[in-house]
């Protein structure tokens, strides 16, 4: 075992220290939740009674291990914080050597804390939320499986381990979306999510093949050393980066693979919080930040990243304004917030840390918002339409306050977390310089405004205004505050969403921490002064907020949405997800169906027809031939005579010839 040399991209070569001490326990991070899942799934009904406890304890234990590792890492020298643990040789075939190995470094440990921390809170929340569900044990098993997969994703020390985690995360997400699989919509949404993720996975898989084909290795240290050293050809590295991006788009619900994420809201709400807001969908951001040395080498790929980020910000915002389903609005807000993160990481070394910071802050406030929405849905007997809410603040004060804090964080109200992280991203976008910088900056700014609008709309329609439901009648609702297991996590997450931004961004804490992994970045030349920009952002956000207040607070909200004919074409388009599903259906599903039908016909008629045809020809021929067997002795005798004459004749001919 050689001691670590240097962990960082700045020197070109990337080295990871070997694991010892607390780090040799890092496999426990994955093993604990995995064991939890195994116990719950194999234990069957016997574990029904205490299943949720096992699941939560497994998550909590993993979080504790994460904390221990984090503090050990903090205690180490700044350049010595990347520790690699070799577990066993996974796929060794001559030149292709893939190990099951873990990498604990500044980037992965941040994710570990986010995943296990927020994960544990959501486990606790689910104890209350799923209390009456007969499948609660399975639910916790799947959540544990998800934690293990996600931890494998961020902890793997090579791209294939990441890929394994990547697909397993897709599986857990599939299992959890279809958790209520007796609902056809949930089953369909789960399949859709898996298919679209698989499209992204193809990109990631091909990227890995490119790495192996070019470098003969898929280990982070080898790939990044070669990339940072400029050893890989420009075309190849751009191809690798774009393929990685395809994978990232699939998992993070970015354009053009965003359509599955809103549908995924068919899963139970804690899942929306855990997977489809706080952790899994940010895997794409992780992938890009992790592959920083690759993306640093290719301007073209980074440009594509920022374009996708910018487009997705707008898509998410626009559609978010049109939906009335509270979870769908939050889902599209997730899509657009991840667009911000993509925009940030696409900006290169200036933006990686900002992207991660926004990711962490988003992890807190979006999880809080989703849990809050879950609390509301719970209270309103599974009603998700905001037009049937209103005035709920009186009935559920804790939810109102915690949700409100998350809401203030997402719209970027100072001094909440979103303010610090989003503001910085907008600033960096402008700092990119040139026309593209202005375009990106303005898109990001516009996005902030629209975010403020639709989030305010959501907040007001849910908690304020007149109640559009009643205590009496057939459809009576009795909103009530949720139990402590649910409000507790909400409060903790609210604290996180208040504090996270300042903690990470002010003074560049996170930037310094992550610098060895994603690279250093000095103070950029500002195109616009930060103060002006901050004020501008605030003004735009305030504009959006004011618009929403005017529209949804000062004027009454209809309990039923207006029909498509009565609203603007943009709203209609937004209500139809900007026709993304229509496009997918027209471009892939319908032609695919026809292709399949054609091939079934082709196989049956042409290919099997050829086979059957040969058989039929031979059969027909033999049918004719057997007619010569008349049953009359004389026929046979004649043919014998003929045969004899033929043979004798032939013999004579040969003799004579």
């Amino acid at each position: 075992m050689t001691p670590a040399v240097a962990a960082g991209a700045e020197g070109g070569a990337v080295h990871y220290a070997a694991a010892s001490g607390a780090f040799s326990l890092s496999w426990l991070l994955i093993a604990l939740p995995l064991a939890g899942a195994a116990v719950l799934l194999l234990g069957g009904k016997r574990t029904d009674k205490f299943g949720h406890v096992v699941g939560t304890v497994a998550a909590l234990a993993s979080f504790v291990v994460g904390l221990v590792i984090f503090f050990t890492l903090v205690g180490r020298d700044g350049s010595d914080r990347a520790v690699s643990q070799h577990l066993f040789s996974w796929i060794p075939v001559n030149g292709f050597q893939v190990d099951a190995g873990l990498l604990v470094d500044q980037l992965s440990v941040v994710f570990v804390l986010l995943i296990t921390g927020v994960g544990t809170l959501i486990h606790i929340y689910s104890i209350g939320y799923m209390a009456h569900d007969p499948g609660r044990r399975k639910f916790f098993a799947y959540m544990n499986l998800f934690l293990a997969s996600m931890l494998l994703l961020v902890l793997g020390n090579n791209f294939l381990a990441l890929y394994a985690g990547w697909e397993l995360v897709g599986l857990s997400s599939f299992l959890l979306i279809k958790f209520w699989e007796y609902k056809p919509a949930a089953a369909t949404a789960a399949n859709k999510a898996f298919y679209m993720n698989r499209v992204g996975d193809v990109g990631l898989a091909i990227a890995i093949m490119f790495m192996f084909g070019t470098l003969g290795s898929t280990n982070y240290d080898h790939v990044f050393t070669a990339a940072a050293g400029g050893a890989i050809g420009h075309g190849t590295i751009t191809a690798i980066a774009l393929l990685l991006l395809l994978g990232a788009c699939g998992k993070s619900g970015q354009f053009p693979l965003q359509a599955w994420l809103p549908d995924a809201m068919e899963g139970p709400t804690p899942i929306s919080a855990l997977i489809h807001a706080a952790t899994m969908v940010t895997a794409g951001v992780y992938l890009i930040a992790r592959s920083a040395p690759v993306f640093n080498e290719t301007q073209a790929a980074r440009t594509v990243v920022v374009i996708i980020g910018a487009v997705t910000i707008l898509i998410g915002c626009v559609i978010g304004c049109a939906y009335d389903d509270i979870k769908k609005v939050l889902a599209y807000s997730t899509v657009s917030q991840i667009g911000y993160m993509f925009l940030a990481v696409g900006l290169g070394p200036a933006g990686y840390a900002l992207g991660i910071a926004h990711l962490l802050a988003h992890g807190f406030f979006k999880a809080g918002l989703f849990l809050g929405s879950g609390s509301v849905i719970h209270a309103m007997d599974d009603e998700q339409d905001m037009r049937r809410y209103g005035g709920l603040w009186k009935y559920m004060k804790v939810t109102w306050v915690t949700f409100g804090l998350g809401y203030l964080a997402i719209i970027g109200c100072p001094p909440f977390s979103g303010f610090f992280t989003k503001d910085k991203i907008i600033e960096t976008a402008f700092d990119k310089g040139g026309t593209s910088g202005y375009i990106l900056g303005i898109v990001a700014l516009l996005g902030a405004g629209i975010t403020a609008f639709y989030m305010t709309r959501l907040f007001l329609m849910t908690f304020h205004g007149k109640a559009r439901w009643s205590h009496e009648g057939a459809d009576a609702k009795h909103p009530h505050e949720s139990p402590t297991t649910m409000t507790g996590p909400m409060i903790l997450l609210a604290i996180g969403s208040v504090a996270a931004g300042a903690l990470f961004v002010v003074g560049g804490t996170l930037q310094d921490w992550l610098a060895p992994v994603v690279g250093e970045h000095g103070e950029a030349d500002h195109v616009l002064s930060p103060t002006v920009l901050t004020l501008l952002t605030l003004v735009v956000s305030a504009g959006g907020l004011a618009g929403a207040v005017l529209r949804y607070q000062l004027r009454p909200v209809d309990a039923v949405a207006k029909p498509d004919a009565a609203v603007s074409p943009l709203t209609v388009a937004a209500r139809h997800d900007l026709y993304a599903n229509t496009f997918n259906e027209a471009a892939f599903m319908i032609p695919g169906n026809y292709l399949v039908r054609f091939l079934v016909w082709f196989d049956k008629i042409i290919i099997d027809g050829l086979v059957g045809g040969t058989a039929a020809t031979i059969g027909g021929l033999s049918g004719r031939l057997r007619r010569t067997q008349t049953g009359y002795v004389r026929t046979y005798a004649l043919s014998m005579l003929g045969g004899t004459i033929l043979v004798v004749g032939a013999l004579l001919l040969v003799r004579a010839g």
Partner: protein
Amino acid sequence: MHTVPWLTILLVIPVAGAILVALLPKRASTLAKQVTLVLTLVELVLAVLATIAYEPDKPGFQFAQRYDWIKQFGVSYSVGADGISIVLILLASVLMPVVVLASWHEAEEGKRGVGAFFSLLLALQAGMVGVFAATDVFLFYVFFEAMLIPMYFLIGSYGAPKEQTQRSYAAVKFLLYSLFGGLLMLAAVIGLYVVSVHQLGHGTFDFAALRQMHIDEDTQKWLFLGFFIAFAIKAPLFPFHTWLPDAGAQSPTGGAVLLVGVLDKVGTFGLLRYCIPLFPDAADYFAPLVLALAVIGIFYGALLAIGQRDMKRLVSYTSLAHFGFIALGCFAFTSQAGTGAVLYMVNHGLSTGLLFLVVGFLVARRGSRDVDAYGGMAKVTPVLAGVFLIAGLSSLALPGLNSFVSEFLVLVGTFTEYKALAIVATCGIVLAAIYVLHLYKRTMTGPVVHEENKLVADLSLREKLVVAPVVALIVALGVYPKPLIDIIRPTVTATFTDVGHHDPAPSVPVAGVTTTGGHS
């Protein structure tokens, strides 16, 4: 040197067993089942011991034995194991007890009696062991054809109970298709013998001796085609596949597992064992064609699987896609792809075997193979649905399960030689997700639409015992495939290097890459 004749022992047990079980009185059906189960378990233990005794890094055939059979023609009983055949024998031995236990009650509806069914199973096993163990081309041919007979009767006499006409049709189609290929192979085998008479002075069918010959390229091409078509039908590759869906749909469950799980592997095994080493130039010449057929098969099989309504036919078509991957790996000529292909043969036997088992259990409960007869089964039979999902996930090559390792090896190995082909083939994994999850969605999720499905029982203890070892292997081989890889890799590497194919070196090799395992 005194060695244990593992292969002969493995061959004799099922042969003797088949005769013994056939001779048991007709009423003693339970005894027949028990005897078969015990024998297959003994066989399994011995196969495991043989695999442990096998030394992966020793070149050439191990446990080799040779006795003259028809001396005048140079035919001998010679058996031997290399890394490829030993794992396939192991696969057959693992699946046998599973199949026996799964077919516990299945033979009762057949028209030839329970004892005959299990006797046929044992005979089939003997054929499977023999075909993998033979190192004499003639002996190989004999086993190759002999395997057909028990399978023919398994389909024809014990297949889908209510479909007399279709199952006879399927059985005859299977037999004729295979015989046609087999006869082409026989012609090529005789051709090979004639060449050996010219080249070596004395005719021989011995594989090792034949391998040393230098056949001129035109002759190679013809002989290659004779072998290749036989194997392409057996595997099957597009467009020789149409017997498989019929046979798969009409077979009894156990028969289908063995048919697709092991029997079809003879085809891909033959490609690697006979086509490439015996006719290296022809293999090079035909490689583009085979690769094209393989990639077509991947998509064709997947798309047709999506379009099926009969569950067993669907699973058969997914096999067509998987065989595409295996053939791709065999003919990419890199050690990664080749190792992946052999590993794929094992993994496919497990995952598709499990899929057939679960579908068979489901069909046995309701008597219909039509997808529309189900829906919402996850609520009624959660364990069955769970196992079904695991089998499906293995089939779509989810990391952490067995097939992923082999599929990725095939793809990455192909990529180093044929980039475009590998990229196209990788897109096939999206279709794999669709055919598996679409089937799962249609059968297992949603509300229970058919009233009679509400009373269907979940897996019984016997059925759980059947699937448990397969599921365990699927997970174990996904997480830690190294033991198998270590057995397969040397043989595959030698197969390719012997005919002059070496792995292409990475264009920008990173220093110290080969020592990545040495962290700790």
